[in-house]
């Protein structure tokens, strides 16, 4: 790979120091499953300094913190998929990570890299959205926490500066009894760029009344989004077939509303509607 300079710090502090001293134009390397592929076309990094943060020990942990799970930005998709904690308390993310690329890619690609690359088709994003994910960013030693939707601006563009380093991703721990669902529609069963993903989180009380509900799509909008108006449609209800239908209508209607009418809309909108109906009917099947 062609670049102006390359460094591989061994601690988070060294990485921050490297970012402090680097000239303008820094690219962080956090696995390389996107970055190294992109390097094959043209010379995208010729004028950039590459700081390789892959495997920094501070970024490779998964921990419980109060109501949250903190996932190090350097944790791989395979590690998330296999984490007992995430499977139990944030299962939709484990399911989403299992659909990424192929085993070889999942073993190497990181959750932080997936966010920073900001591909609209990234499989983790819809799942992170329904888990109300927040991103911890370290800028030259100063730490802040930002909602996921504020980090990604549009396809392949984030609001981060080239001195910002994503250190952790916080996802809300779900209560026992929460139902998760992740659906990926691809053109084939592996190594498929998502046509659409749908992530669902649903919690009902003992009487069947919905307490918490988030449902959104990936590979559909320019950035990760949650829709309060849609989610509220089920809160406090024991949903009927009609309610399910209403959610399916409302959620699929977001596609032309937000992404505009595109050649793919004729496919995506009706498919979204049908699949939302199917997923909710399945999750609420016990009713």
């Amino acid at each position, binding site marked *: 790979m062609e670049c102006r300079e390359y460094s591989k710090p061994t601690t988070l502090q060294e990485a921050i120091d490297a970012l402090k001293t680097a000239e303008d134009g820094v690219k962080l390397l956090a696995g390389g499953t996107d970055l190294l592929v992109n390097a094959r076309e043209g010379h995208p990094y010729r004028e950039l300094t590459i700081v390789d943060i892959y495997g920094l020990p501070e970024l490779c942990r998964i921990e419980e913190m109060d109501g949250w799970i903190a996932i190090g930005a350097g944790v791989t998709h395979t590690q998330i998929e296999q984490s007992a904690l995430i499977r139990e308390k944030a299962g939709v993310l484990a399911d989403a990570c299992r659909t990424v690329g192929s085993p070889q890619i999942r073993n190497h690609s990181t959750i932080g890299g997936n966010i920073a690359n900001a591909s609209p088709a990234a499989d983790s994003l819809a799942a992170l959205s329904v888990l109300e994910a927040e991103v911890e960013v370290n800028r030259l030693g100063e730490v802040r926490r930002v909602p996921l939707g504020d980090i990604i601006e549009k396809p392949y563009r984030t609001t981060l500066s080239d001195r910002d380093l994503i250190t952790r991703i916080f996802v809300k721990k779900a209560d026992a009894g929460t139902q998760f669902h992740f659906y990926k529609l691809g053109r084939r069963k*592996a190594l498929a760029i998502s046509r659409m993903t749908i992530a669902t989180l649903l919690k009902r009380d003992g009487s069947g009344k919905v307490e918490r509900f988030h449902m959104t799509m990936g590979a559909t909008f320019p950035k990760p989004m949650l829709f309060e108006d849609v989610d509220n449609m089920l809160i406090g209800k024991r949903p009927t077939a009609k309610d399910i239908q209403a959610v399916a209508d409302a959620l699929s209607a977001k596609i032309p509303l937000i992404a505009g009418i595109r050649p793919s809309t004729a496919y995506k909108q*009706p498919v979204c509607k*049908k699949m939302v109906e*199917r997923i909710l009917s399945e999750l609420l099947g016990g009713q």
Partner: protein
Amino acid sequence: METLPIGKPIERIDARAKVTGRAEYGADIRLPGLLYCKGVYAAHPHAKLLKVYTEEAAKMSGVVCVVTGADIPGEKMFGELYVDQYALVCDKTRFYGDVIAVVAAETQEQADAAAELVHADYEELPILATPKMALESDIAINADYPDNICGNVHVRKGNAAAGLQEADVIVSGTYKTGFVEHAYIEPESVTVIPDRIRRELTVLGSAQAPYNLRLSVARTLNIPVAQVIVKPSVIGGSFGGKIESAESLAVRAGLIALKTGRPAQYTLTREESIRESYKRHPIDFDIQLGAKQDGTLVAMKVEAIGDAGAYINMSPPVMYKTATLGPGPYRIENVDYNATSVMTNNVHTGSMRGFGTPQAIFALENAMDELAAKLNLTPTELRRKNLLQNGDVSPCGHLLDFHEVSIRSVMEKAAQELGFDEKFAQYAQENKDGRRIRRGVGIAVSMRGASIGADGNGFDVARAFIEVLEDGSVNVDLGLTELGQGLRTCQSQMVAEGMGVSFERISFGNTDTSRAPATGACIASRSTLLGGGALKDASRKVHAIMARVLERKFNKPTDDIVFAEDRVRFADVDISFTEAAKICYALCETPIAVGTYVVPKLNWNEHEGFGEPFYTYTYSCHAAEVSVDLDTGSVDVIRMVGCHDMGRAINPVLVKGQIYGGLAMAQGMALTEDLGHNAKTSALKNLNFEDYLIPTVLDVPDENVPLLDEHPDPRSAFGGRSLGEPATEPGAGALICAINHALGHPGLIRELPADLDRVFAAVRAMEGGDA
């Protein structure tokens, strides 16, 4: 007999080298002083090339030379049957894969960097990006073909128009297929080494057709044919794809080797490979099929238009196979099958496994299902009424009285394995209950002419060299290439049987055009039939030499001589083969022979489009079971069964391997593979395997089943015909029949690939837009 090597699942001779990584592929080759090449592609798909600027590139560090078409010393064009392809374009560009210059440098990175500095002046011409545009245009892509039509084969038997009038039921409609990439694992790589003493080049790398390559290099670089020596490396798949594609690389690298006196390697990236290598023809079919009320086929009329792309390549013979094999293995009296290839500014199209027939079988077999539905017959009932049997006349007029016409038992075996008849009824019933994920089954049959056929009348030949050495080992040199299909192992098995010796004695040389006599290429499902014939002839000749020597040595008649099981027996003599070999050398005799096999002249009337289009045929049936999600258009292949009568399976494990691969290849063509062709600009969008979607291991069912229905062919030396192409031929048709069955509407899907959007759109149309 138990000890005979044919029919045994002998381990392939290259298996261990391949799985351990010891095998050397083209791009693995490293030589002292090796130069690396990089091509510069045309910026416009159709433009006069006014001037190419190479000066800046030539000055770059590490660059040793830059060549353009002007540097080619011999003929500017090459080609197998039609000489119209440019390895380096001179006068004008014809498609986006044309190369205007090649840079050679000390490293690949230096060559890549310098290639970016080559540019050119163009005078743009209108882009003819579809056959329709090319047919309507005044502009000729190749001046020798002013109407842009470069091939036409018109098969006629009986009177199709009258037949259709007599039919009780007619189906008519159009079917369309797209460009398909071979998708071999190994992109093309060629290394050319100049001789230090004379003007001679040795070519290594991924060459499917070394003798054709030798001619192309000789023609363009002005070298005697004998001084172009081709030694293909281990080849990582080809499927027909590494013929002209490898030749253009060899011409370019050869030019650099001659200019610099240094070896030159030219390896394509995947994107370059997909951009410049030829594809499977997209073909539009307009089909009419008529039958009597009882299901008897009476007439078939088909107009097929194939997109030849920028060069003629193999388009005319591809159209020959479309027209002669497109009518399927049916008894039908009135046939009119007209196949035409049209030049465009698209990527050129040529040889690819099936060669114009997987498309035709897809169209025909789906039309057959439409017909069955109209007649209230099941797909198997309709086929049973019409499939050929012994003594029938083929749709082209070929009396089939020379081998077992097994298509009926082939189909029954496949149908039974899949449980076709039961599932056809069961799914049709259960799909009525409103479920959104439906299942379906489909079945498709084909007959495949072995080898080139009558359009190659008189030049369909193979030659092989066999040498018995003093220790009784047997050296074989045969110019048919190992492409991954297991040819070297199978041909060794045939030599062992032909020579009457054990498999272990056979040493099968790496293909080397300076050692093995010129032979037709390993194409057209011909190598088992043709190679077997040549090996048998060579064996007979070596036996005759040995018999003569032994007669002299023992002074006994050898009229009854038998070579079998490593023994030589005649009169009352019974000696080992090794001893017989030693005697030959002790008496200064030469047990060496070249065998020749040429396919007998076929009685084919080209003008009338009628007669014997091929020497013999392989019979095939694929059956498929799928599920279709009506809410997404997603198709899941549950299971495929491939049953084939390839005569005799020389090595049954390798045969089954070919069937597994053929089914997977058919699945890709049917469901996902799409090059993203732009019908205005002619550009291809999907140039790598992230975007061009071949099936993954998760997409191909573990439950696929290969079946053999063997009937040794009296027309083949060892009873075997080839299976390379039949293994994929009917698969796409069967899959689409299955999808259409799941949707309850034969003929609903009429265009390949049946991807998410296309299936979903078809479902919407069927359900009246309210999905």
